[in-house]
């Protein structure tokens, strides 16, 4: 009796007082939150031409569960074959099973390719036989990914073809062919079998590898874009949350502007009834697409730069590494920034296949040579030597120095690049013909400290692409592009002592005065220097984000400190360089521009090779754009500033003139 009362009271208590708690507990079990991914923001060039988009990806998958009987049958067949061949040895059962799986999947793949391949379509007269699987090994089952799939996600469908309409792959060369492949599969491949087609959205770079170093690529991440609201409600906080695999920028603008591009995740609160059927949506917020990013790049100039750059090849036909930059003289907006070798971010959008990653790695394709490559500026540095000479009154614009075939510094002869020497040379002529001896003499008379001071005044060793306007101060995105170079070197006696190179000598000064020796800077720095020179100032702040036409403060910039005649001498020297000097081969009729070429020696794996430089601005009288081009010569190539790097500048200028 007592027990009965106790039980009754207990039940009453539970019913009345705990009821609300219990129902809430029940809700936890039957509700869950599903986090929904936002679409990533798009990236455009300055004229709103798409540089980065999102596109539909179609993947063909096989349901291994449904295929099980077929695989079993094949396995038994293989087993009996193995027994027949060698009755006494114990066959490797795992190997046989794997072979059976591979055989069956290949059989289905052959059917898929039969439907999709262009060779078998209506009224195609087949002249020569194509073996869709045999000729294209990558169309077969990838055994490694099958093994990985069985290890990690056995219950899921196995991806047979990860991107049916991927432009540029062996499947389809053009978007149109990609569409055909999808349409053929949907309309012709028998439905209802173990093979299904699924679609999702992936990052797409419509111009392929164009501006790859600026744009970057995306990769998988578990770090999701933030939700529109944090789950502060304790009930929501406790619920199970289903996440997705997100994407984050892994290089370039994709990385540095990830905070803007990634958008905001949405979430949904779903109810399941006790039977597990009929889910219903209780509450939801939709994901918000990431913001659009407009860059200062100009698609046409970028294309011209990359095409010409990729056409510079070594003796065996491989493209030479190089970089090209063009920027707006007044605003510092970068119109083109190319680096060779590059990579195709489309192929990295899914998951980086080790093979492709290694390919890029071994070719040195990850390096953005425009912002990260450190090079001796070579003869392009002679402009600075001249400015230093004139500002320190060691030489004036109309002083003529006698320049022989070499100049003796200490006990060593520093040669001219012309065997007989140039005779009388002034600033203007020096820049046109790139006389070395003039620079040895001026450089030595200025001295290493003042020479270095002059180079620093032009910012050749200060990090560039600082983010002027970071909208997210909490992040460490101080730069518009990730890991821009910080190891620039403007040598002076202190520097040499610091690196343990011993005492500074006259030879070091002579080397520095012609842009060799310890000097290291990037193509972007040299382009900025050209832009500063065009404006008659010292500093140009380059940027990839449009300044909106507002008056730009080039922070720290000051007047160049030369009188009109001195500046005129430098400019006309660089003008003569194009008209009659070292860049004569790349002059553009109708578009007068100024330039200075350079050919620096450097040591590539211990052997001497040449760097080809050209920097300048255009038009000569009223400068609008400045440029710098660098090409790394190989050991066996004859690389000369005007001849090798010049055409890239020429094509960029032509492209710019076309759209002017």
């Amino acid at each position: 009796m007592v027990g009965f009362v106790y039980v009754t009271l207990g039940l009453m208590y539970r019913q009345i007082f705990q009821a609300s708690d219990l129902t809430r507990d029940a809700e936890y079990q039957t509700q869950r939150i599903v986090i929904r991914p936002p679409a990533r923001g798009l990236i455009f060039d300055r004229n709103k031409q798409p540089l980065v988009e999102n596109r539909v990806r179609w993947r063909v998958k096989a349901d291994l569960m449904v295929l099980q009987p077929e695989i079993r049958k094949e396995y038994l067949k293989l087993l009996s074959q193995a027994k027949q061949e060698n009755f006494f040895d114990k066959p490797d059962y795992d190997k046989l099973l794997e072979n059976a799986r591979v055989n069956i999947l290949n059989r289905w793949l052959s059917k898929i390719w039969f439907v999709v391949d262009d060779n078998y379509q209506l009224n195609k007269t087949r002249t020569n036989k194509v073996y869709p699987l045999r000729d294209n090994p990558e169309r077969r089952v990838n055994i490694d990914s099958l093994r990985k799939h069985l290890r990690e996600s056995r219950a899921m469908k196995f991806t047979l073809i990860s991107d049916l309409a991927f432009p540029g792959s062996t499947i389809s060369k053009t978007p149109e062919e990609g569409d055909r492949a999808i349409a053929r599969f949907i309309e012709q491949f028998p439905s209802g079998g173990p093979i299904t087609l699924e679609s999702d959205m992936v990052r797409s770079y419509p111009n392929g590898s164009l501006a790859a170093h600026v744009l970057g690529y995306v990769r998988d991440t578990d770090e999701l874009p933030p939700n529109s609201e944090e789950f502060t409600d304790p009930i929501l906080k406790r619920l199970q949350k289903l996440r997705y695999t997100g994407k984050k920028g892994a290089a370039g603008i994709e990385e540095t502007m990830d905070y803007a591009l990634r958008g905001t995740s949405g979430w949904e609160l779903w109810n399941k009834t006790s039977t597990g059927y009929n889910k219903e949506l209780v509450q939801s917020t939709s994901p918000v697409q990431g913001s659009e990013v407009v860059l200062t790049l100009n698609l046409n100039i970028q294309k011209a730069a990359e095409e010409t750059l990729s056409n510079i090849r070594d003796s065996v036909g491989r493209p030479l590494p190089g970089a090209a930059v063009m920027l707006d003289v007044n605003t510092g907006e970068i119109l083109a920034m190319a680096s060779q070798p590059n990579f195709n971010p489309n192929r990295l959008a899914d998951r980086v296949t080790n093979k492709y990653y290694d390919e890029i790695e071994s070719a040195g394709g990850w390096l953005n040579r425009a912002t990260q490559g450190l090079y001796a500026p070579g003869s392009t540095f002679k402009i600075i030597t001249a400015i230093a000479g004139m500002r320190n009154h060691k030489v004036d614009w109309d002083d003529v120095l006698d320049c022989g075939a070499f100049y003796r510094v200490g006990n060593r002869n520093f040669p001219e690049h012309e065997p007989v020497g140039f005779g009388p040379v002034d600033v203007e002529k020096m820049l046109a013909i790139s006389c070395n001896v003039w620079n040895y003499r001026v450089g030595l008379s200025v001295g290493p400290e003042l020479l270095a001071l002059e180079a620093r005044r032009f910012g050749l060793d200060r990090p560039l692409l600082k983010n002027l306007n970071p909208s997210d101060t909490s992040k460490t995105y101080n730069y518009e592009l990730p890991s821009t170079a910080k190891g620039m070197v403007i040598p002076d006696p202190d520097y040499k002592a610091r690196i343990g190179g011993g005492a500074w000598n006259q030879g070091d000064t002579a080397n520095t005065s012609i842009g060799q020796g310890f000097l290291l800077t990037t193509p972007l720095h040299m382009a900025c220097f050209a832009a500063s020179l065009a404006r008659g100032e010292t500093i140009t702040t380059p940027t990839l984000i449009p300044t909106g036409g507002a008056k730009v403060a080039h922070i720290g910039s000051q007047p160049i400190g030369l009188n009109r005649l001195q500046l005129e001498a430098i400019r006309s020297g660089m003008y003569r360089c194009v008209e009659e000097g070292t860049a004569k081969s790349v002059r553009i009729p109708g578009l007068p521009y100024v330039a200075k070429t350079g050919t620096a020696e450097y040591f590539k794996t211990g052997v001497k090779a040449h760097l080809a430089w050209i920097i300048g601005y255009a038009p000569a009288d009223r400068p609008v754009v400045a440029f710098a081009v660098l090409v790394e010569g190989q050991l066996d190539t004859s690389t000369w500033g005007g001849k090798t790097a010049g055409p890239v500048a020429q094509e960029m200028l032509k492209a710019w003139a076309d759209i002017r």
Partner: protein
Amino acid sequence: MDKNRQGAKASYVALAVFIAAWVVLPSAFRRFNREAFAEFQAPALQLLSKGRDLSRYWELRSRTDEELISASRDLSRINAALELKLQGTDDMRRENSRLREMLRYPTSSEYLTVVARVVSRDTSSWWQSIIIRKGRNDGIRPGAPVVFGNHVIGRISVVHQNVSEVDLITSPTFRCTAFLDGDEPPRIVHVGGMAGNSLSAPRAKISVIPPGYSPPAGEVTKVITTGLGGVFPAGLIIGTIEGEVSKTPEANFKEAFMVPSKELDRIDEVSVLIPKYPSPGEILMSPGEFLKLEEFK
């Protein structure tokens, strides 16, 4: 009575054995069995359809002279209008072929057209098909598109001697690709029947609509064949979008419902477009043909 139950037991065992046999039997046998029973019904279905034609004929016979005269007047008016249109069409055809020649564009006559009457319609929540009065004897092949004018009706699913089954576009087994009106440049979307979702008029579902797409305002949005898949010629109307184009739960894509452009349960006559050359999909449907291809061995 007991004897009867005893016998039944034996029959159950026999049935169980037969079911087991049925499962392991070669599929060719089952196919033959199905074909045989279909052919058994075919004459009756044909007879029925012919009877319907006949009754229609007698119904027309019973019309009064007045009715016939007015009908004939209407017809001659329509005829005159069509004549005029035909004139224009001839010019356009000439222009078209001239342009095609200039562009070396392949001619579109890759199909033979066979007109067929509808024998019966068979719709349920799990299949949507019609049976037409043309079959293997008339050159009908499985997979061939079935149209009415420039409207898509469905595809041939099974071909018998004198009748064929047509899988309608609202049938769950139907799928094709399409372009949507107002999508510039056009992007491929997926159309699949989805009869099984309600008892109201069956629909198809358009999926994988790119998220940036929105239908032209104030207009009926047509769904048009792409002509890329090698089955349907380009530019045929599959249907129109019904209701709004909404985002999928994943918010990756949009999707929409589509109503067929023709009332599929009323249609009396259709054309079958038989491709001159079999498509790979058609070859796949007859396994023997595929295995004959040396490249795929």
